[in-house]
């Protein structure tokens, strides 16, 4: 439709006085990383950050600028999702337009559609990622842009950067005098910075200590760039084109850096997702804070001094009664409405969605958890993103940098492979989604990964050997916000093993006082797991000290009593002593208990081992474990003589088996 376009552009020339600024927001995200959370769940801009849809934050900060016209570009399939948003915000603006684009495959497609329709006639604020947050009013930047544009019509674009102490390590070069962009490198672009003599003559400042906010002030000429170059996918393409063809196009791009008091951030990957949530909850973006947000729902957020936010029903505003505030120890976190939180839960730097249940003693750091999840007791979740309606069993220790999409039921046993930097889903990626691969893993899950080899978690990390090492360097942001835990006084200096042993001894004696039910055994296992996590005890030590504690119990003073209780608590042993290593640890616990003082015990030792071995007894131990342990004993050890009968018998038995095999 060339004629239409030309007419539109003619009218632009006439309307030069039209000085108003329109905000153009691309509502969808074209980042394959977020696909696990976006398939059939609406556009990216309705995804929630701090339990608030992203677009509400975006429009909220736009309200604080001089803009009173908004154009939202959305793909056709997502149009209906945005109707409620339009209804809610329409009255705040002079113009609020939803533009549906037919199957846009990139930001470029959406912008081409916009240009084709010739809706924009004035300068505009281009926000290519709705998950862009700032507390700046952009007044100075807009003024500068207009002044530059007045001086030269070809100054068509201003990129807004923020001062950031956590640079993406993207290098840009601007002229010191007027901020004209001369060098533009993205962090993911490995091209090198070569010093050109002209940079010296032009007084160029090269820096990588600023971060692109994703906000740009543009004139319509920028849209024309997209329409004339059908292969342009994103904003960067247009920027590179303008820089590379400076002599032909004669267009200039400038860079404006926000003040130090102004904060801006955007979400590009899961790492920045966590960072943005933490910044919002820690009020770095004030007045853009979760509890300042306009909430249409039935509840609002209230917060206490530690920046703990709780979802509260509207009629209960002003009190923390009815919230979970007593159960939770934590800071810089948000707990949605209607959550069920059991006692002694610790939440730091995390967001918990509405209606989620969290079990006793679970600890959560730097996580984003969706709505209606069920998190078991004694879990440890760190640096993870969890979708809606995910179930996590008791005592689960989730790997760092795991991404769990919605509706997952995690199995009780740990997965047989690492999920750090991958996304675990219940479904396979859409075949149309380029750039995504997947592996199938146990339990019918799909493990998504990027074909580019980069981590799903962070743009800066490539998966491969030692990926976890890279992570540990990369997440310094999160660690800074949340270091209170390590410094808390309760981290006693006592040996963790001793503390562990004491804790489980208490648990066991308490259970002995109660009448026995199978449920009690589950609780005991839970408490042991929880102590294990709290004291950072290895699985082998658990096996050793659990049994050592067990035979120290009063009820086990006699061999009869020991047999009785062991049979009763069989559940405990089947839970911990399946692996051969654990069985050896069990035997070593017996060995340590062996001594001159308890003659009764010494005599009963072979019987005890026999009891633990035979099917008529407990049937926990297996022959290889006993033989391995026996090998490790000192030649002079009295246990050797005591055990001789059993060992001989075991050897005979295994030889017989071998004969049978033949």
């Amino acid at each position, binding site marked *: 439709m060339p004629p239409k376009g030309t007419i539109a552009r003619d009218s632009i020339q006439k309307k030069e006085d039209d000085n108003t600024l329109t905000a153009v927001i691309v509502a969808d995200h074209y980042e394959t990383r977020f696909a696990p959370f976006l398939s059939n769940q609406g556009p990216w801009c309705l995804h929630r950050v701090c339990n608030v849809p992203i677009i509400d934050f975006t429009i909220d900060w736009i309200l604080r600028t001089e803009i009173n016209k908004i154009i939202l570009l959305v793909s056709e399939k997502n149009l209906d999702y945005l109707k409620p948003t339009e209804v809610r915000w329409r009255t705040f603006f002079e113009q609020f337009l939803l533009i549906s684009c037919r199957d846009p495959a990139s930001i470029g497609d959406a912008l081409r559609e916009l240009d084709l329709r010739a809706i924009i006639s004035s300068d505009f604020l281009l926000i290519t990622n709705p998950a862009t947050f700032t507390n700046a009013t952009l007044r100075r930047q807009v003024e500068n842009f207009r002044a530059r544009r007045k001086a030269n019509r070809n100054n068509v674009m201003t990129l807004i950067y923020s001062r950031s102490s956590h640079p993406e390590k993207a290098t840009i070069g601007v002229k010191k005098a007027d901020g004209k962009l001369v060098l533009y490198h993205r962090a993911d672009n490995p091209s*090198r910075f070569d*010093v050109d003599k002209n940079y*010296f003559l032009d007084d160029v400042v*090269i820096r*990588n200590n600023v971060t692109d906010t994703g906000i740009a002030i543009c004139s319509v000429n920028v849209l024309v760039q997209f329409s004339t170059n059908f292969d342009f996918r994103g904003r960067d393409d247009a920027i590179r084109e303008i820089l590379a063809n400076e002599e032909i196009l004669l267009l200039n791009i400038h860079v404006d850096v926000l003040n130090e008091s102004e904060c801006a951030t955007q979400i590009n990957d899961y790492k920045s997702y966590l960072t943005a949530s933490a910044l919002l909850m820690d009020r770095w973006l004030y007045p853009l804070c979760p509890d300042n947000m306009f909430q249409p729902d039935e509840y609002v957020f209230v917060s206490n001094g530690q920046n703990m936010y709780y979802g509260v029903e509207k009629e209960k505003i002003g009190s923390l009664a009815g919230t979970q505030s007593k159960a939770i120890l934590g800071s810089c976190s948000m707990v949605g409405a209607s959550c069920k939180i059991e006692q002694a839960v610790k939440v730091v730097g995390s967001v918990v969605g509405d209606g989620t249940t969290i079990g006793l003693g679970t600890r959560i750091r730097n996580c984003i958890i969706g709505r209606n999840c069920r998190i078991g007791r004694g879990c440890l979740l760190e640096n993870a993103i969890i979708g809606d309606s995910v179930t996590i069993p008791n005592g689960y220790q989730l790997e760092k940098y795991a991404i769990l999409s919605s509706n997952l039921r995690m199995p009780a046993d740990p997965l047989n492979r690492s999920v750090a930097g991958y996304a675990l889903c219940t479904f396979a990626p859409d075949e149309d989604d380029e750039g995504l691969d997947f592996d199938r893993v146990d339990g019918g899950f799909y493990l998504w990964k990027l074909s580019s080899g980069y981590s799903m978690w962070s743009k800066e990390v490539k998966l491969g050997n030692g990926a976890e090492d890279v992570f540990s360097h990369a997440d310094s942001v999160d660690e800074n916000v949340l270091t209170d835990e390590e410094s808390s006084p309760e981290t006693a200096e006592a040996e963790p093993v001793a503390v562990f042993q004491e804790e489980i001894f208490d648990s066991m004696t308490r259970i002995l006082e109660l009448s026995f039910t199978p449920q009690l055994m589950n609780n005991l296992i839970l408490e042991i797991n929880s102590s294990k996590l709290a004291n950072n005890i290895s699985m082998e030590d658990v096996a050793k000290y659990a049994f050592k504690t067990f035979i120290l119990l009063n009820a086990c003073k006699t061999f009869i009593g020991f047999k009785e209780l062991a049979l009763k608590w069989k559940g405990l042993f089947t839970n911990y002593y399946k692996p051969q290593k654990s069985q050896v640890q069990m035997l070593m616990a017996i060995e340590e208990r062996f001594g001159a003082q308890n003659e009764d015990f010494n005599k009963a030792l072979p019987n005890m081992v026999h009891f633990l071995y035979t099917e008529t007894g407990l049937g926990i131990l297996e022959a290889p474990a006993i033989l391995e342990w026996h090998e490790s004993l000192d030649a002079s050890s009295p246990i050797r003589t005591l055990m001789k009968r059993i060992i001989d018998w075991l050897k005979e038995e295994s030889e017989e088996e071998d004969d049978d095999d033949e």
Partner: protein
Amino acid sequence: MSELQAVLLCAGSGNRMPELTEHLSKSLLPVAGIPMFWFPLNSISKTGVRDVKLITCEEYRAEYEKLLEDPFYQWDHMQVEVLSLPRDHDDWGTGDAFRHFQPKFTHDVLVVSGDFISDMSLTPMIELFRCESATLCMLLSEHCITGNIPGPKVRRSKGRDLVAWCEQSKRIAFCSPEEDFEKSISGDSWINRLNELTLTAKLNDCHVYLLRNSAIELLATHKNFASLKADLVPFLLNKQFEPAASCESKSPPTCFVYVQPVQNGTIVAHANNLGSYFEISKTILKALPRISPRLTLGQEINFKATGTSCISSRVGDSSKISAGVVIKMSSIGEHVLIDEKARIQGSVVMDRVEIGKGAHISMSILCPGVKVMDGAEVVNCIISNDQVVHPNVKLQNELLEAESDGEDWRNEF
């Protein structure tokens, strides 16, 4: 201050201004009627440094020693030792000189070029060096004086330095004369270390350095380093960004830059070229009282009595100025004779020059012993030692040297 030694480099031959240095060491050229090296010596004295080494060549050693006997060149707290380069090593660079006299340098060193003329204080720069524990600290200025060059138009280097530095941390990554910058180089290591860099061609290296003793020791192991500026400084700058070799326990050097702010000093000149020398000779007159109370403003000329006007100029005490002469923006040396109604504007007139009646001198340099006869007109010229400009001759954009035959000029006009 005993933590620092100072070195005044006066061995430079002045190869960027051969027109003037044929008969005189560069650092002995007169500025405001006194040899140029007095100015950097005065700047050093203000820092409180006690131990000063003056490096010159054998040829001029006696001259410097004689001058230093004069109380005008002496400061109570300061000892100046003259070191001369061996006679057969005239081609030595500054690096070679430092290596030769290395046993003399026991402390960190303030290196000042003999052609550095300024009323600024070097103390803030020493403070920066001290508090940053810098290996190297160099003085750069945006306001280095330069100006038009009299004489025939010759294509000369712009004398610009290309500098990459960080305005926040004052670290410097790169400094090179424009002529030496050939192919483009990678700046990745700079930006990764310093995060923000300003690349500019506006700052000039004033050839004032503060060097750790450890840096001077490097000269002993790197025998090929002939010059401080061209070899040692780039070596230290690069070394900052190299990953430290495992065998070396020392941390990499850190190089800083003190950029002269406008508050510190009104004039800075690195008078190693004609333009800069010519301009500083004229503009320094305003700053003389600030530089030192020892300096005089020359003789006073009474306009009412003689009808001679002297505006923004300095005239040596022993010069004789007749009536009706106009002197503007010029520096007149000692034992100069200026006859009636001569007009001198924007020029440097050195010792023992004679200017005839009604002669007109404008934007020119007259070397010692020049005779300009009555009615001659000299505009934008350099007249070499003892040359004669004949009556009523007009010279413009010329260099008058001994080789050229003065007779020809008269015939031509």
